[in-house]
């Protein structure tokens, strides 16, 4: 179970899946509070949007909920990645072995995706109740979430590998959580804000993800530039994480 990575070395897929299984599924089974933590903000915001808009914007909030869950879990992962590196020294253990930075990064990313799954399932059920889904919408949602998890996890790794003290990560993750899950048009129509603000917010991959998702679910008009932005940002952030993440320290 290997495949070729960008640098020509083979990815250890067995390791990445086992890490995802142990640190994702097993951890959820032993500590369900992780799921509640991942779900709490998106569900609270869904409730708020429902109440404030008298249900008018609930479909936007549901679609945005998928995006927000994946983004917030990936951002929370920066805390774990920093904790593994600075406190537990687990990253050092794997640096001095045949595990590559890509194996480690993808393994952790997949495990965080596991944390997102219960939330995605819950939103899926709510989406069925509100008749949100079409085959096109589902296919686009899967694509958008896959790109988003790669992009946001990459951002998390870049941050977690650059901090020197574990305390710093909590503040940074909090700021990023607001910047990347509340401000972008996850819970409101992207047309509600001026185009200039939309483009400014598009510096975070959550914004193009939300715009593409709103179009895919038939809630807002198409804005093709945002799809290209999402793909481009994912590639750029993943490459930055791959080459900027501190593996062998200097």
């Amino acid at each position, binding site marked *: 179970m290997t495949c070729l990575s960008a640098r020509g070395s083979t990815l*250890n897929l067995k390791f990445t899946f*086992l890490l995802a299984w142990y640190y994702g599924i*097993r951890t959820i089974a032993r500590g369900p509070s992780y799921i509640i933590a991942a779900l709490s903000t998106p569900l609270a915001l869904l409730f708020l949007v429902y109440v404030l808009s008298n249900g008018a914007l609930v479909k936007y909030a549901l679609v945005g909920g998928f995006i927000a869950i994946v983004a917030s879990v990936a951002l929370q992962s920066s805390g774990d990645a920093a904790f593994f590196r600075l406190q537990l020294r687990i990253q050092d*253990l794997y*640096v001095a072995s*045949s595990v590559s930075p890509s194996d480690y990064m993808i393994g952790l990313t997949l495990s965080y995706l596991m944390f997102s799954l219960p939330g995605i399932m819950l939103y899926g059920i709510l989406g069925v109740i509100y008749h949100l889904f079409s085959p096109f919408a589902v296919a686009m949602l899967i694509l958008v979430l896959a790109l988003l998890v790669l992009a946001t996890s990459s951002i998390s790794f870049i941050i977690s590998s650059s901090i020197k003290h574990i305390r710093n990560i909590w503040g940074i993750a909090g700021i990023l959580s607001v910047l990347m899950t509340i401000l972008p048009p996850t819970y409101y129509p992207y047309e509600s804000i001026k185009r200039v603000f939309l483009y400014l917010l598009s510096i975070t991959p959550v914004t193009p993800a939300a715009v593409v998702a709103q179009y895919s679910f038939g809630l807002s008009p198409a804005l093709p530039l945002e799809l290209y932005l999402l793909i481009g940002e994912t590639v750029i952030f993943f490459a930055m994480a791959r080459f900027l993440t501190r593996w*062998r*320290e200097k």
Partner: protein
Amino acid sequence: MIEVKDLVKKYSDGITALKGVSFNASKRVTSIIGRNGAGKTTLLRILSTQLMPTSGSVSINGVDIIRNPDDIRNKIVSIPQEASPIGVLTAFEQVKMYLVGRRFSFMDATREANRSLNEIGLEGFKHVPTDTLSGGMKRKVFVAMALASNAEIVFLDEPTTGLDPLSRMEVWSAIRQIDSHIILTTHYMEEAQELSDEVFLVETGKIIEQGTVASLLNRFDGMLRAETSSPCDGCARVSNTYIKYIQKDRAQEYLEKGFTVKSVNLDDLFISKGVNLES
């Protein structure tokens, strides 16, 4: 065989941790001893490909590990200082995951994880989350990884720091089960004495002594360490203690003067700096 030549490490904050370290290590267990901040961990992290040096060269079994770290990484294991297992995962899961990371098959990883954990005495604890284990047991989880990996070289950075004496002895016993070439750092002289075939003494980024434990203690042959809390003739002051090295046949005389008399061990390599040994 590890060959280190003119190794220098300057950190970005201006601290020079290593100032031209050179040595060859070929014995089965090599200890790098020194006080806190001497440069032991920096040296070990460079040797185990975790840290780039500023200059100098390191080859392990003929591989230039500065330029080609990937060529040696599948042959080494490095247990970082104060490493701690992931609390929510069991010892078995973590050893198995580490072995699969080293490209063992699932079947081999399962078998070797079970074998190594049983061998080091964690049989009854391998399927409970590691946050319920004692400090010594947690450290043994990493030793089990080293044991199961069949690596050629195992680097252990202060493997027993912070452990109580009994846990320390348990970890030593587990370390003795590793067949590989071991390089360990420690500031516990007793640990170096207990485990090592060869010792390198590091101080302020340089190796100042090297040899077997016996050869390093040779200069103290027939001597004891006499300590007192009051200033005395020919005594060196170490903190609030005054120290003198005496011939064994004068032990009674010094005891009657109120000195405490102790056997000499590797601690005395540090303590004796600047002390004239009584002839």
